[in-house]
């Protein structure tokens, strides 16, 4: 067991290097390469054997006035995942959370001296503490789970970006106002311009930029269809216990359902799948409602 641990800890090391080595290059390829890497290596056990630190903070943009749909979805996914693992954390809103993140993406957590960003990295880090939601899954199921997670990243998340930044109505009424809200004039315009440019570049690389809204919605519908089929009436995607996939689906679908946008097409599509809505409600009730009663 001990040798196993050391071995896997080396794997983790390589893993992180790969992730950060690619930082700043086109992110579009990254999602896939992460997944490939992960499927090859078993989930890491034990980067360190230190217990979960007490002062863990999740850094994210301000929820009320700043955060955008895709970011909010990712932040909520991470929160859901940590709650599913019954780990303590505090949410720390920061206007510059995105710039603070090592991968320039929100959310990220600070645990002791470690700073880890995005769901995949955080899942690995938590696994390193000996806490895992996927212990009982066999390799095939794990591969499945990662495939679905990458599906969400590559379809739903991209669609959210498309709606927020490319759809002119949403951009003018919501995105530009919220994204620029934390900056003084004229920095808000500059920042919106830069961010929009980045998103367009990413969407072009993924070949989504030239899609029409209908095509985008069709992609989302296909994705929901696939998720619906996978769920197949079960409580969670993999039997009775939630996994990070459930956290990710919850984060995205909950945000889509609850965020008011000028165009409610995304929410309308999701509403066609009562099973998925049930899942979202179940997770919210189980992991988030308790918190609010406190």
């Amino acid at each position, binding site marked *: 067991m001990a040798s196993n641990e050391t071995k896997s800890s080396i794997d983790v090391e390589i893993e992180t290097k790969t992730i950060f080595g690619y930082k700043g290059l086109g992110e579009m390829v990254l999602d896939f390469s992460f997944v490939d890497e992960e499927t090859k290596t078993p989930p890491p056990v034990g980067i360190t054997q230190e217990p979960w630190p007490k002062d863990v903070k999740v850094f994210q943009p301000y929820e009320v006035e700043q955060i955008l749909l895709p970011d909010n979805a990712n932040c909520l996914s991470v929160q859901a995942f940590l709650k599913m693992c019954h780990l303590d954390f505090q949410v720390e809103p*920061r206007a*510059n959370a995105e*710039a603070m993140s090592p991968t320039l993406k929100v959310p990220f957590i600070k645990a002791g001296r470690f700073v880890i960003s995005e769901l995949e990295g955080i899942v690995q880090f938590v696994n390193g503490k000996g806490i895992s939601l996927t212990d009982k899954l066999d390799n095939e199921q794990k591969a499945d789970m990662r495939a679905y997670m990458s599906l969400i990243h590559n379809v739903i998340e991209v669609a959210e970006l498309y709606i927020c930044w490319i759809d002119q109505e949403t951009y003018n009424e919501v995105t530009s106002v919220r994204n620029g809200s934390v*900056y003084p004039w004229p*920095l808000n315009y*500059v920042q919106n311009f830069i961010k929009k440019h980045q998103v367009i570049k990413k969407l072009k690389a993924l070949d989504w930029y030239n899609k029409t809204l209908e095509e985008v919605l069709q992609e989302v519908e296909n994705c929901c269809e696939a998720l619906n089929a996978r769920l197949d009436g079960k409580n969670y995607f993999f039997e009775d216990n939630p996994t990070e996939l459930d956290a990710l689906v919850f984060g995205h679908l909950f945000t889509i359902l609850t965020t008011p946008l000028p165009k409610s097409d995304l929410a309308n599509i999701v509403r066609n799948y009562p099973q998925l809505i049930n899942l979202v409600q179940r997770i919210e009730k189980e992991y988030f409602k308790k918190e609010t009663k406190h």
Partner: protein
Amino acid sequence: MGTVHAKAEENFTEAPAFGDKNIFREPTETFSFKEVDLEAVRARVDKINVDGLSRTKNDIVEDCIKELFKAKDFQDVLLKAHRVSQSQAGRAGVFQEHLRVHRHEQGPEGHVRRLGSDVQREGAQAGNGGVTTHVGNNEGALLVGMRAPNLFGRGERVQMEYSHGSKKTSNFNVAFIKPFRGRHRPTLTTSVFQTHSEWPTSGYKQVERGLLVDLGFYSAPLLKHNVQWEGNIRDLNVLSRTTSFNVREQCGLNLKSALKHILSVDLRDDLIFPQQRVALPADVGDRRPGRRRGVPEERLLPAGELFHSRGFHGVSVLQACLSGGHMSSLSNDMKISMSDMYYLGGPLSVRGFQMRGVGPHSDSDALGSMSYWAAGLHLFTPLPFRPGRGGFGELFRTHFFVNAGNIGNFQSVKGEDLVEALRANLRLSYGLGIALRLGNMARLEVNYCFPHAFDKGDQVHRASSSASGCSSCNVRHTPLGVLPLRVRVNRIVEHLKCTFEEISRIPTIVYEICCLIK
């Protein structure tokens, strides 16, 4: 060619006036140029021919040469002609000037002489450029510049500069400069710039993009004011994954809009080192994100002038310097960014410490403070036993120094005595070394430093302090390994200049002055 016609006074009714000044002329004495008292030589400028200036507008030329008509004697003519070249139009690159005085004509019987003074003015070309190297702040930089002087005929110029430094700094700057006529010699400068810089000692890198509008004017001949507004978007980022979280928290874009008033007394004498300057720059206030008030940066280098003006040819020079700064936030929601903070320590401030090594640190990244002061006393003497005297040895000086300073948020202890707060936790270091003049390029100092008083958080060289009971500040990878040596390259001006301007069709003005020598 332009010509100035100056003649001896034809109206000799004023003759008594120069009779009074005739202190050197005895009828029996044979004339010698060496004995000429120029002030006693009466002269008058009648006419100045200006030629070869095509773009330059008349008013600005008239403006800068009209002083010459007021000249009363020959010395006056010379001085004023020289001053023309120093004038604003001259400095703005409208034309350059060479002063050449020669005997023009010998009058009969040695009484009346015509002296000719040619003042040539070469109009600057439509555009020129150059590649220069620049050493300063422990960094060497390559500078590529292009400029279009005298664009609209009144000294306006556009210049573009790009520099790339050895410490990964790069700077791009396009400026438009417009001098105005007037007694206070006002100059308006607007520039757009982009600057990259990396600060490994603080663990961050920064990109600045901004706009600067500057109005400079003189209220007294040497007293220069600059009123500046700077709008600047800064993007701060961590340098590496291991950077401290305190630095990481500062990441992101922020906007700085600053209003500055800089007051400087320029006492440079254009010799070897450019820093012969007593400068009192004061930022009056920043609108955002914080403001510096009072006299935040004060630099007094009274003896620095002495040192520099004598260069390395003087005997022993004592130099004292003092600097200090303070800033405070205008309101709580305007945060002062790390890049605005004051840092202390390193080759250019308090020796004996690493660069930015004094003051609060987090994981060895310097965080900076809101106030500081630093002082230094330096003694430069010739090398012991004067090897290479009069030659190579003159490039070297022995250097003894004492540096002191303190940094912190002194305002928070306002209730106590301020002097006490400034003195508490004082850092002191002393040492000796050798200063070397590298051509006209740089001054290189190799010093052995003994930090005498320092704080726990400060970065001194622990390894050497444990061995010898002293410690030093040094460049991290010192070539001498164990020896705690520090290399300091002082601020430099000039350059390996290779210009590729075309020297053809040089517009010229020639002054022709006729003087009467009794």
